[in-house]
């Protein structure tokens, strides 16, 4: 087979294509609140002033800024591409000055149109439990169904969360991911704005997934959202986060921090579909704490961005807690998907599972980094890790770097990884059944990730399959 030949025929391409240009637009900037470029103590003060932060938070942000400045880039293990980030040309805060709104009518017209083109039409509200859609730093639209409010579920942006619900917010804020966890969590702690705060009270099972769409819409503007989700004892909820971003000429930084807390017997599932445009640095810190018999699941799909570094983690703090990471990564030319999982076992009989599948297309590079830690004094912990990689072209690249530390008593861990490509026989078989080479390849790749795609809610899995087909276009070789 030859990497240069065999492109999809026009009919097929039209059949599987989605209109990507819908994501490629941006509106003139008219920001009432703009912190300017670069980062200093003054920037942090400016953000605090605009957001009317309490004093403890101002102090927290300043401390975080010092940590950020002190910490070196993790380039001794990570890619050198990180050095291309110029922190001085990034805008760390801007807000269109619009207060979060409840009803659709209050949303400004151009923002409305953005969402319209993103595919969140008004009608969808009917069956979406609540939409928390982020436009730049501030939440522009927020709607929690009445029944959720009746149950006492809090679903607001993080600023509102810390102002209105400080008694729930503050005890967990920055506790799952301490400021000094890494350079980028420190950066986020210093300048965060936006993101969600969710609290599900004891025993409440949220039937529909809660959703938020994030969007970056200003050149050189980094988005630093901060999400904190707390599921109280025996509650259940699923949160979905999806991203698209318009294309810009210079690089954009996205550095979020997401903290999840699952109290005793709670179940918390966090689903991400990341499709930033290919100039975005996506450096995200995500971690959950699972208390006794609780479950935290990360379902993560990375298709876009220039460089993604994301290793969702679960700290299993209570007996019989469970942690799971399911991840799909697709790296096309010019992209590096550096993803993985961290499983910290901190109590007896905890179990964790990591399943990762990556596809490298063209000159794309995908990396799996894993960490499984089982300390000495525990017993009966189990971990299973599987990572499979698929290489499409001869210039594609894939790496796997797990680290597993096990001490002691009746634990078992297993790690498996395999790297393969779509076999010529398989393609030949499908072709003689009347599929073009491109279709056959698309089908094979979708088959490779199929068992994971099924973990996503229906509308996401359909979208995901189409995105994968689109990325595979013209890549056959």
């Amino acid at each position, binding site marked *: 087979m030859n990497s240069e030949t065999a492109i999809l025929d026009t009919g097929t391409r039209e059949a599987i294509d989605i209109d990507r240009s819908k994501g490629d637009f941006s509106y003139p900037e008219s920001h009432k609140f703009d912190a300017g470029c670069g980062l200093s103590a003054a920037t942090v003060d400016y953000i605090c002033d605009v957001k009317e932060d309490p004093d403890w938070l101002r102090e927290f942000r300043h401390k975080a800024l010092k940590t950020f400045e002190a910490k070196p880039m993790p380039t*001794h*293990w990570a890619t050198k591409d990180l050095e291309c980030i110029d922190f001085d040309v990034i805008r760390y805060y801007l807000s269109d000055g619009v207060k979060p709104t409840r009803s659709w009518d209050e949303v400004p017209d151009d923002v409305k149109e953005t969402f319209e083109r993103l595919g969140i039409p008004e009608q969808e509200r009917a069956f979406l439990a609540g939409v928390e859609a982020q436009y730049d730093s501030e939440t522009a639209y927020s709607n929690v169904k009445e029944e959720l409010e009746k149950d006492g579920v809090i679903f607001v942006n993080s600023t509102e969360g810390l102002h209105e619900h400080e008694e729930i917010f503050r005890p967990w804020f920055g506790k799952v991911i301490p400021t000094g966890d890494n350079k980028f969590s420190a950066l986020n702690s210093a300048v965060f704005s936006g993101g969600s705060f969710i609290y599900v009270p004891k025993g409440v099972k949220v039937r529909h997934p809660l959703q938020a769409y994030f969007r970056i819409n200003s050149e050189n503007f980094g988005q630093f959202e901060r999400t904190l989700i707390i599921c109280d004892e025996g509650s259940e909820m699923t949160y979905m986060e999806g991203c698209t971003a318009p294309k810009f000429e210079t690089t954009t930084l996205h550095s979020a921090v997401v903290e999840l807390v699952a109290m005793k017997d709670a179940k918390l599932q966090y689903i991400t579909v990341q499709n930033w445009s290919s100039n975005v640095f996506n450096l995200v810190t995500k971690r959950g704490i699972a208390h006794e018999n609780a479950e935290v699941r990360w379902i993560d799909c990375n298709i876009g961005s220039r460089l993604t570094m994301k290793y969702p983690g679960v700290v299993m703090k209570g007996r019989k807690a469970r942690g799971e990471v399911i991840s799909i990564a697709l790296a096309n030319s010019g992209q590096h998907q550096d993803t993985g999982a961290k499983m910290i076992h901190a109590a007896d009989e905890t179990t964790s599972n990591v399943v990762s599948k990556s596809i490298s297309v063209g000159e794309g590079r995908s990396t799996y980094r894993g960490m499984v830690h089982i300390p*000495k004094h525990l*017993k009966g912990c189990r971990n299973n890790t599987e990572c499979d*990689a698929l*290489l*499409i*072209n*001869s*210039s*594609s*690249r*894939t*790496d*796997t*770097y*797990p*680290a*597993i*530390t*096990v*001490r*002691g*008593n*009746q*634990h*078992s*861990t*297993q*790690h*498996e*990884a*395999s*790297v*393969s*490509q779509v076999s010529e026989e398989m393609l030949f078989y499908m072709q003689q059944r009347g599929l073009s080479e491109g279709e056959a390849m698309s089908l094979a790749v979708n088959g490779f990730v199929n068992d994971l795609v099924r973990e996503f809610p229906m509308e996401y899995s359909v979208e995901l399959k189409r995105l994968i087909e689109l990325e595979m276009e013209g890549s056959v070789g």
Partner: protein
Amino acid sequence: MEAVLERVSVLEQAPERLEDSPAWFNESRQAGWTRFNELPMPSRRDEQWRFARLGQLNFEGVGFPQHEPPAGHRGAAGLEKRAARFGFINDTLNEEEQDLPDGVVCLPLDRALAEHPDLVQKHFMKAETELGSAKFAALHRAHVSSGMFIYIPDNVQVSAPIEVFHWLSGDHIITFPHTLVVTGTNAEVTVVDYFQSDTTALDAWAIAMNDLVAGPGSTLNYLVLQDLCDQARMIQVNNTRVSRDATAKAFILNSGAAWVRQESLSRLEGENAHSNMLSVSIARDGQEYDQRTFQHHVSPRSYSDLLYKNTLYDDSRTVFSGLILVDEGAHYTDAYQTCRNLLMSETAEATSMPGLEINADQVKCSHGSTSAMIADDEIFYLCTRGIRPYIARQLVAQGFSVEAIARLREPALEELVVSFAAREFDRISERLVA
């Protein structure tokens, strides 16, 4: 003042000029010394020393052996059928015996340098040390004076193994054992390196290097049996280069020493090159085995397979970090890597970092790592057969190690390794009984 000789630390002593050695060798020693001083000590931030106990890299008071070593040491009995046998005490030759085919060069390094300077120069320390110990490899280059040079010419097969014994004697001493094996086209050889010591060799160090160069179509087997005393420490750097159609097999057994760092690099340079990397480590007390491996596929259609098995007792610790790198264009590579840890106590700790970097397609690569204790069911089953629990556990542990040993596929060598492993298991059993 008493005439006590203050020993100069090995870190401060520049290499002396060796009058009998060729000029290039003396230059190489000087270059090694310069490089050693340029390179920094490994630090926490070095990915290649992740999880390593850097505190073990303590050379305080460690110097060159001052006294003539006592004669007569050799340690293990070794093999009955052998082609040659060499013994060194603290890098000084004390035993020599050989019955080798014509054309084979099998000499202590200093004599090889005198008799075949060009041949040695062509192969001596040609590979970069890529897995973290470059500084110590440079120290080795600066101070190496003895060791073995083994050259098997084209189409010569040495049927029986060549044995080399390295004995460490005295405390606070450092040695630099060196083994260089080169096989010509279609040649064949097996070399066994033994590392042993006095039982009281407190803070004795060995910084060993072994370079294996397997020529086209040749077969090169190399075994390391490491059974140093519990106070000794060792850094061992291996570089293996495998040409087309050649097969290299390297086996490491660890049962002794306080701390061992082993770096094994296999570079597959031709089509149909095969590399087998095997290791069995039996760790007890506070022993620590830190093993780093690298399977580098440069050429398409080459094959490598790695199997490391660790059995951990007491508070022991093992670190395994392995990487398979498939270069661009190295299509149709088959590369496998497996590390299995059997935890025999609640306080032992096993860390595995199996890695893959694939830059080509049409490859078959996999890696796997497991860590677990023996299941209660297995012990229960053996107990129902009238076997006492502690014996049952030992049987399972021995069976676990045998999988890697059996891959040697050479009864005499398997028997030798099994006898070493069995002795270690017996030591542990005795203690359990007492």
